[in-house]
């Protein structure tokens, strides 16, 4: 009895102290941290708006941009917040006064003058630092969220496995039924005293051979016609590229218009493989990948940040100094779509005049991580489209020359004009 109660008190004390310790462990650092961070005693919510309107073009809380990261930056300034206020209000004056700390910083960041902000009050600057110092990077660890989209790629292969197993089961079932059927017939024949025919192996039965010949005839015919009509077609060609550039990430998730990079599509014969300066419009700032996990068509995880680093290597961009101070070399992209030399094709004619969507010929690009050739690019494919596509006849200055059709449209003799009616299937339209 005595031992039991002693045990109970001990247990109670132990639990209580444990709870206390755990509480201390979990709450103390946060309280301490919050106190330490709130040193400039500003209003972080007001600071956020001020920061985004005034500072965020050149500074971020955590990473180098045009200027240094701002988290804790005010603590490094000798002279404290008063010097910071002076600097923000008129940076040139501080530099001219010979302040060593700011002059060193100025030289370190490529001698870029900081804009003067005389309109920001000391309180505003406190608010900004209150926001910046409490800033936590949203969704760190970019590769951690690999699970959700990772299931997509193996899903399709397991589907075909299920179908394969089903087919096999059905085939075995058919075999068993056939066997049962023949056995039953044999038994029935025996009972009725009918003589069983001499068993012939199935591959020597004339009926089976005949059926096989017919089947092979059809398959052979299909293969012959298909092979002969698609000579030189490269549909589904999906070469490996030097940089794993995902159209899904750029055109899909981030909604960048096709023409942003392929600006030539409405100006020239070529859609334009974007020159790397266009990549660097965004990637001088975006130096790591934070979106959902990327998989190649084999289901393998692709490291987005490594691809951006590859781009930096090609263009000679130094991510530390934020300058092009390394030797660069051209990116040798592998051409996917190739038309023979004897066919003329012009992108601007289709995109600008014809108002054809990119996806009509290139497929659902904005959903693809790896691009492949979507259309056959065969002549039949071209001609089919030219026969059925109705041109925007009335609202298009290019077609005023076709006065006959204009008249007929007005008289309601025809309701639309196709590409073919304008000579879009003439040989010399594309072959010259």
């Amino acid at each position: 009895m005595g031992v039991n109660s002693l045990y109970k008190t001990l247990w109670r004390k132990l639990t209580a102290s444990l709870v206390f310790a755990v509480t201390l462990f979990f709450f103390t650092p946060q309280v301490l941290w919050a106190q330490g961070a709130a040193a400039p005693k500003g209003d972080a919510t007001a600071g956020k708006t001020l920061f985004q309107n005034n500072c965020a073009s050149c500074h971020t809380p955590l990473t180098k941009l045009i200027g240094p990261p701002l988290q804790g930056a005010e603590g490094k300034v000798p002279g404290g917040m008063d010097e910071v206020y002076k600097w923000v209000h008129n940076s040139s004056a501080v530099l001219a006064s010979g302040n060593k700390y700011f002059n060193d910083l100025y030289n370190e960041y490529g001698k870029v003058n900081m804009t003067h902000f005389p309109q920001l009050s000391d309180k505003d600057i406190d608010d900004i630092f209150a926001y910046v110092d409490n800033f936590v990077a949203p969704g760190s660890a970019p590769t951690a969220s690999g699970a959700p989209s990772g299931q997509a790629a193996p899903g399709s292969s397991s589907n075909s496995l299920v179908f394969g197993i089903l087919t096999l089961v059905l085939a075995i079932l058919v075999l068993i039924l056939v066997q049962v059927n023949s056995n039953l017939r044999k038994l029935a024949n025996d009972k009725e005293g009918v003589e069983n025919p001499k068993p012939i192996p199935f591959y020597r039965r004339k009926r089976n051979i005949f059926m096989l010949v017919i089947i092979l005839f059809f398959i052979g015919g299909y293969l012959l016609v298909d092979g002969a009509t698609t000579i030189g077609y490269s549909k589904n060609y999906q070469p490996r590229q030097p940089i794993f550039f995902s159209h899904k990430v750029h055109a899909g998730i981030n909604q960048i218009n096709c023409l942003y990079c392929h600006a030539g599509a409405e100006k020239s014969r070529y859609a334009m493989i974007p020159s790397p300066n266009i990549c660097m419009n965004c990637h001088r700032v975006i130096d790591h990948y934070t979106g959902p996990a990327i998989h190649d068509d084999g289901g393998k995880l692709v490291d987005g940040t490594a691809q951006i680093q590859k781009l930096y290597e090609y263009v000679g961009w130094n991510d530390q100094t934020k300058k092009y101070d390394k030797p660069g070399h051209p990116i040798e992209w592998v051409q996917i779509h190739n038309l023979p030399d004897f066919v003329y094709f012009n992108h601007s004619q289709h995109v600008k005049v014809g108002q054809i969507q990119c996806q009509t010929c290139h497929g659902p690009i904005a959903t693809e991580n790896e691009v492949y050739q979507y259309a056959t690019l065969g002549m039949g494919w071209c001609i089919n489209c030219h026969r059925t596509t109705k041109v925007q006849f009335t609202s298009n200055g290019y077609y005023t020359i076709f006065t006959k059709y204009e008249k007929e449209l007005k008289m309601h003799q025809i309701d639309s004009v196709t590409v073919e009616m304008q000579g879009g299937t003439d040989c010399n339209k594309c072959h010259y």
Partner: protein
Amino acid sequence: MKNLYQMKRINIIVILFVTAGSLLLLSACHTRKYHEPKDIYMPDMEYSRAYDAYTENPVFADNQTSRLPVSGTVQRGAMLPYHIPESDSGYAYSGTVANPLHVDDSILKEGKRLFDIYCAICHGEKLDGDGPLYKGGSGPFIAAPANFIAGPTSTLPEGTIFYVATYGLRNMGSYASQVNQHQRWMIVSYIKSVERSKGISTPEKEDSTLHSLETAYLSTLKGGAATGGMGSK
């Protein structure tokens, strides 16, 4: 052996099913993607023998077939090259350049289309500096893009916006390779028309300020800062 007409119905069904099944399987193979180029029947017709836009070219030192326009030449129908080189004094002076376009509705419509393609991705379709890449600071592009309808950028003169689109500024790159001069002026016209519709006016600089800006700009030109600025942009 019985002929085809006397064949049992079951046999015809079997033939049909097996043929259809194998053709389905064969056509399924056709959708499989492949990574190495196919064997081409006539390679010298399939692949151009002539140098094409992106083919390597042994004639030029940089191995590229695509060339820049010859320096000092102007394309037919194109605007004269932008004369201000990239420099601090050039930036300050750029505001004095007036928009050469006679702005009408068709220009504003095209300007909006171009803005939505090339600029809105960062500056936002509402011109508020909050495009899909920035998303109020939660997007992948962490630097805040300029806001055209409030703050200091909203009162920039047209010429300066054109200058920035041409050469880039801070975290923004040059857009000269994507939109040509005529298109850039159309975009600038559109931005200004939206600003005007929101009651934002661009302050005119006084003549004396203009004069001092011009003197400062011209003095840097004599110093040789302008070399190579012409032609390519």
